[in-house]
């Protein structure tokens, strides 16, 4: 779906590369978690993926289309992006208008528009706010409306650039459930940028960025083996993984590394029934 070939990007000639000779690919329908400390190049990478930035060198293709001055507009429709900070994204006078805004230039019928907007707002649990002014919402509520705006456009790839940062734990969980739900009903590629490795655990694959490069790529279980190395680059494995590491040192061995609490408790239950 997305292929990077030796891509570099630098914001100005005097500073180093924010993304440095990066090659990687993301398959259609894959859920990628993109992690890395602040400043490691995640947002720059995301903006390259949807043509908000063009590479300084190297090539990028999205859905078979090679990114250039001529194609970035096409690519932006395929790759929707939900940003970190929703404050600046609002244009409509009501939540409903705001979510509909992105659809207005896409030639969607009025009927279809209402349907999509309602569905998108329900998915982020903001339907009851549909007639309110977006600027009266608190931060987390605004973010959910911004997410609905992208969902309504139904792009092929959605990038969430730390979109969960401002949500409370329930909101985070809802967002993750929303993504799971989306992937069940339609083909949808997800790039989920986060610092929270327990959220990254839900992805099919994790790409770890460091200093503008891909530092590691693998299934969550594989990546979480590297507790010390991750902590050296400013990251922290999920709490459950740390707790399991402590148990493991004291003689509790489970069949597979638990990623969530449920996996840990279920396996402990099996183990103890054999003891």
């Amino acid at each position: 779906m997305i292929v990077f070939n030796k891509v570099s990007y630098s914001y100005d000639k005097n500073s180093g590369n924010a993304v440095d000779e990066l090659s990687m690919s993301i398959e259609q329908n894959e859920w990628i978690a993109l992690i890395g400390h602040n400043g490691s190049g995640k947002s720059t990478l995301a903006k390259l993926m949807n043509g908000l930035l063009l590479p300084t060198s190297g090539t990028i293709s999205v859905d078979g289309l090679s990114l250039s001055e001529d194609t970035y507009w096409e690519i932006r429709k395929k790759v929707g992006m939900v940003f970190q900070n929703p404050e600046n994204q609002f244009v409509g006078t009501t939540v409903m208008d705001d979510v509909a805004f992105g659809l207005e230039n896409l030639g969607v019928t009025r009927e279809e528009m209402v349907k999509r907007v309602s569905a998108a707002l329900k998915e982020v649990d903001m339907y009851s706010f549909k007639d309110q002014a977006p600027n009266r919402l608190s931060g987390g509520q605004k973010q959910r409306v911004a997410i609905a705006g992208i969902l309504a456009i139904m792009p092929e790839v959605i990038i969430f650039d730390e979109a969960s940062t401002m949500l409370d734990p329930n909101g985070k969980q809802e967002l993750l459930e929303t993504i799971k739900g989306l992937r069940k009903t339609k083909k949808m590629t997800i790039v989920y940028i986060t610092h929270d490795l327990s959220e990254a655990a839900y992805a099919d694959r994790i790409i770890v960025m460091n200093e503008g490069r891909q530092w590691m790529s693998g299934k969550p279980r594989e990546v979480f083996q590297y507790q010390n190395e991750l902590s050296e680059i400013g990251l922290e494995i999920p709490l459950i993984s740390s707790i399991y590491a402590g148990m493991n040192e004291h003689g509790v061995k489970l069949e597979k590394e638990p990623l969530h609490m449920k996996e840990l408790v279920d396996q402990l239950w099996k183990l103890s029934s054999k003891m």
Partner: protein
Amino acid sequence: MEIVFENVDFIYQPNSPFSHQALKDISLTIKDGDYAAFIGHTGSGKSTLLQHLNGILRPTSGTVRIGDFELTTKKNNEIKSLRRKVGVVFQYPEHQLFEETVEKDILFGPKNFGMDVEEAKHNLPTILEEVGLPTDVLQRSPFELSGGQMRRVAIAGVLITEPNVLILDEPTAGLDPRGRKQIMSLIDSLHKKKRMTIILVTHHMEDVLRHANQAFVLNKGELVMQGEPVEVFQEEERLRKIGLGIPEELQLINQLKQTLGLPITYLHQSPSELGKDIAKALHAGGNR
């Protein structure tokens, strides 16, 4: 400085079709030297409540007392002296940095409050050390700094006015795990060494458990629970009903008790110590 709320209501845009009651009959006390945490679903009124503490908002009815200072529905001209005593680091403080250099940004408060700017300047190295910034950032533009460093600049800008109370609205939102840990331990040391009263808003329940000594739970503008964090978090069901979780380690302890009957007590263990305790409890159970 003791902080007391007495029957505080707050209504946004009262007497208009958009009127919205964000605080309902809030009464609470934060004692001098407390480390208080406010938790609640998005929109529950946390930021609204905090804005009463330094007079950005005034109660629609009821009274807020901060030390000798009383905030009521009436305008009060001494608000500047209150703001000096009660420093606020807002949500996303980097949006408030606006001067060309870090130094100017930090000195904005002292200037604004009519403090001795030369003396404040003299204190800069100490403050920078406290917040963990190198002195060479002073002449740099705040916008060249990393997210974590910008938070520190914002905290430094508040500390330099020597407040008694430090209020932080989600100070670690958006920071990576290392940045978050550093800010949390900075707050800890301000609380312990400078005996500042700390008021924290956060969604990180494990930070509440680890750092605060009082937790206040807001729901739809009402204060629904308060107490020591460990006690408050014992009410898992009640919290869940209002959209809040409890720290993961407590969740795990509860589940192991329910499903396996493992008796584990939370005593502020580190994750790996907790793992060890679970292993021990398992083995003890197995030998039975």
